[in-house]
């Protein structure tokens, strides 16, 4: 696995002068976790609000006597 990573790193560096630094994941993975969690929470709140709005907007049918 290390060999593959090293090969990719060398090839990328040679081609574009850009490094391949898996260590950067330590910084970005928490952002990914928080970001996805944040989106689901916000969308969850919006779903609850929309459900509430739908109930609010639906007038209960009056029973015909």
């Amino acid at each position: 696995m290390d060999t593959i990573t090293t090969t990719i790193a060398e090839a990328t560096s040679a081609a574009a002068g850009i490094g391949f630094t898996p260590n950067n994941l330590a910084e970005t993975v928490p952002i990914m976790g928080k970001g996805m969690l944040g989106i689901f929470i916000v969308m969850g709140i919006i779903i609850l609000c929309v459900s509430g709005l739908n109930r609010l907007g639906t007038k209960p049918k009056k029973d015909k006597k």
Partner: protein
Amino acid sequence: MDILTDIFGNLANIDPKQVIMWIIGGVLIFLAIKKEMEPTLLLPMGFGAILVNLPIPDPAVTGEVSGVRAVIDFLFEIGIDSHELFPLILFIGIGAMIDFEPVLTNPKLMIFGAAAQFGIFFTLCLSSMFGFELKDAASIAIIGAADGPTSIFVANMLNSNYTAAIMVAAYSYMALVPIVQPPIIKLCTTKKERLIRMNYTGKKVSKLTKILFPIVVTIIVGMVAPDATALIGFLMFGNLIRECGVLNSLSETAQNVLANLITIFLGFTIASKMVAEDFLKLETLLIMGLGLVAFVVDTFGGIMIAKIMNLFTKNKINPMIGAAGISAFPMSARVVHKMGLAEDNQNFLLMHSIGVNVSGQVASVIAGGLILTLVGNALIK
């Protein structure tokens, strides 16, 4: 001889890199006209790319930037650089175009919009591993929002060094949705799954709900992701104009005249960043590749959440609709609908996929806001 030198002397200023940019501009114009790929943006961008790469006398000699470059730079300064004016105003038009009814009748569809933003964060990690600075990695990742104004907004707010490449990638892949998504969808789903029929209840949504929805969403998103307030606020303002029922004239203007006017200037303005020396870098190719990864993983994320939900729900969901969560509105919804019809000519997925698609529009704005907040915090540390 002196006359010839006077007339054609500027030819000596031509740089081979500029010629390459003319070709790139030509390709964009070709794609816009011949292939009808996002012509409203690719055509102005293509022409602008040629325009800003014409040889001009060296500013170091003349003491000032030449006319056309100065005008386009000015447009960039006031339209994008200062307060992201163009993308925000365009969002009013987009908001006025969107009918949220399909998602209001079935709010659960919003889950797919959320899941389909996974590509953004996956690409953030990948870009960062390729050695891009965090602010650039985040700006590249937002290509996965599949939403031009959001990409421009985030890349500019983060002051990315690759704004032009990001904008070109964002709009190119949005145009390429009908080519990029179908193979991924087929790869991630079985024929049996693609044949799943979904009933559309067609419930009526009250006018009150339609009016309150943009207001409530603005308040919620504004509180959770304050950096996205401008984006969501302008989007939802446009939608409120549409739904209020008393501003039909303004709604039509926002959908047509305003959106078209801004689009003309936006494409032209983006081209100001397509100057050869800034654009012709290997990083640009890498950004195009990472943008593609973002779109692919977004599609994958949306489909997978549908498959997971199918494990627990009685009424099965056609996983293809999850792919429409990438927000490229309305192309992605149409792609899913067409694929459904191709499998079964009586399977109409349009209303479901449109619902997921507009959810993706909202989710991508939230993702943009969260990226700005989270990356901003990380950069401060």
